[in-house]
């Protein structure tokens, strides 16, 4: 069962044809990795999945993205879509407020007033993001005081608090040191049980370690996609071969 399906998607930033006729199924409760050289359109594709490209001026999108069988580029409530398809950014971007308020933010934005319920969700989300033990004594201190790795797990907790079905991650460990990266990868092993995950990564090793499916992009094209093992061991296209063997990119 595919959670998301990208069908013949073309995206233009003004004149720049950034995504060229992409079709990609994204299976439920699996980790799909998007790999490829810098500038090939990985982040752009990720942002089409929760319509964050809507924020970019002059962007034009053709084709469609089906989420549970519904076209998200039809006339839908984007806020609801984004609650169900959460996102974690490349650089940790906690809001300049307390740890607690960061995690509670999404619920409060939906108008949730029940303090007890919010507290429960905050604790549960921080536990799911493997951050609870580190911050439970200082929930009401500024999130900016956390280390980079902790901030990124906080951003994951913040996304989890909305009880999304999909979590999109754009190179979530590229700004982190190896130990923090390892923690996040461990965490993803837990998250994959509950969520459908799409992750952009520039590290092929990371893709091999954590993903079930891998899609390889090249200059706005989806070159090939397959089970991660297959793609890395028996790439079909010569460009994929070159890339996964480390010849370029």
């Amino acid at each position, binding site marked *: 069962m595919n959670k998301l399906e990208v069908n013949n998607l073309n995206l233009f930033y003004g004149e720049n044809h950034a995504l060229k006729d992409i079709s990609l199924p994204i299976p439920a409760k699996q980790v799909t990795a998007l790999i490829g050289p810098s500038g090939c359109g990985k982040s752009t594709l990720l942002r089409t999945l929760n319509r964050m490209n809507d924020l970019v001026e002059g962007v034009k999108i053709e084709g469609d993205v089906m989420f549970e069988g519904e076209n998200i580029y039809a006339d839908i409530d984007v806020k609801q879509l984004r609650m169900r398809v959460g996102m974690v950014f490349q650089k940790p971007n906690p*809001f300049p407020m307390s740890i607690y308020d960061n995690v509670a933010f999404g619920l409060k934005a939906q108008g949730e007033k029940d303090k007890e319920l919010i507290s429960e969700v905050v604790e549960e989300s921080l536990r799911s993001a493997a951050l609870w033990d580190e911050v439970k004594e200082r929930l009401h201190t500024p999130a900016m005081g956390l280390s980079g790795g902790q901030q990124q797990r906080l951003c994951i907790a913040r996304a989890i608090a909305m009880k999304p079905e999909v979590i999109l991650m754009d190179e979530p460990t590229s700004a982190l040191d190896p130990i923090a990266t390892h923690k996040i990868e461990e965490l993803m092993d837990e998250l994959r049980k509950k969520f459908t995950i799409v992750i952009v990564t520039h590290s092929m090793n990371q893709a091999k370690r954590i993903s079930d499916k891998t899609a390889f992009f090249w200059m706005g094209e989806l070159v090939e996609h397959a089970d991660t093992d297959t793609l890395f061991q028996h790439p079909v296209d010569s460009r994929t071969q070159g890339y996964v063997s480390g010849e370029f990119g």
Partner: protein
Amino acid sequence: METASKMGQVTTSLTPAKKIDWIERLFHGLFFISAMVGVISVITIGWFVFYEGLPAFKEAGLLNFIFGREWLPPALYGISSMIVASLISTVGAVLIGVPIAIMTAVFLAEIAPKWMANIVRPAVELLAGIPSVVYGFFGLIVIVPAIEAVFDIPAGNTLLAGIIVLAIMILPTVITISETSIRALTPTYKAGALALGASHIYTIFNVLLPAAKSGIYTGIALGIARAIGETMAIIMVMGNAPAMPGSLLEPARSLTANIAMEMAYATGIHASSLYSTGIVLLAFIILLNAGLLYLNRQRGHA
């Protein structure tokens, strides 16, 4: 090194330091003197205002001067009605002007399409350049008659007229600084909030404005300083009666107006009392700056 030896040059490396680098010294001196101009001005102004103002404090008594309600030189020197007028006109201007200014800043930074922002922004900047005497004209021609008509009173030169003119005068400062500080925020705050399904409006009020708080406070403080120090426009529209205003629809005289209007003919203790009025004005400005420092420091710890 290698090239040097290849070329057969002396390899004794670096030259010894010149005894004194005069260019360096000259510029250090220049920077220092420039920095001192501001400091010395503040000290000189403070010194002279205090020096000239103290006799009146002594003569009238500090408490009588500040809390006294009658201003009848050379007999009575009480400026409480002017303190009240200055405070009320400033607070009123802030209550009206700041919300309008912040909403305008949000509009410019977040909502207006580019072409519209490009019309509104220069208009606001133009507002900042208008001399206060022209604001005074505007108040006399538009606001004062409007107040007479709306409230059916014979003279529209009132505290309310002062409040409205000041509210307009502080707009550009607060708008410009607030807009700049909203724009200076990293776009990842907004993206993060929208990605959680928050609406644009919720994001503005709960992420962007709080994050831009310290810049906005600075804008408000500069606006308050402008309002409390404004003289010309206030003299033209507020009526200037040196008596405690009973309502917003009565004339009032601000601290600044008191100084400007009587300075030309005052002598002796009377003149000194005008400097004392200046001391009180300075005290308010210092309090304001201290309050701003405190707020921003709070934020630093938050």
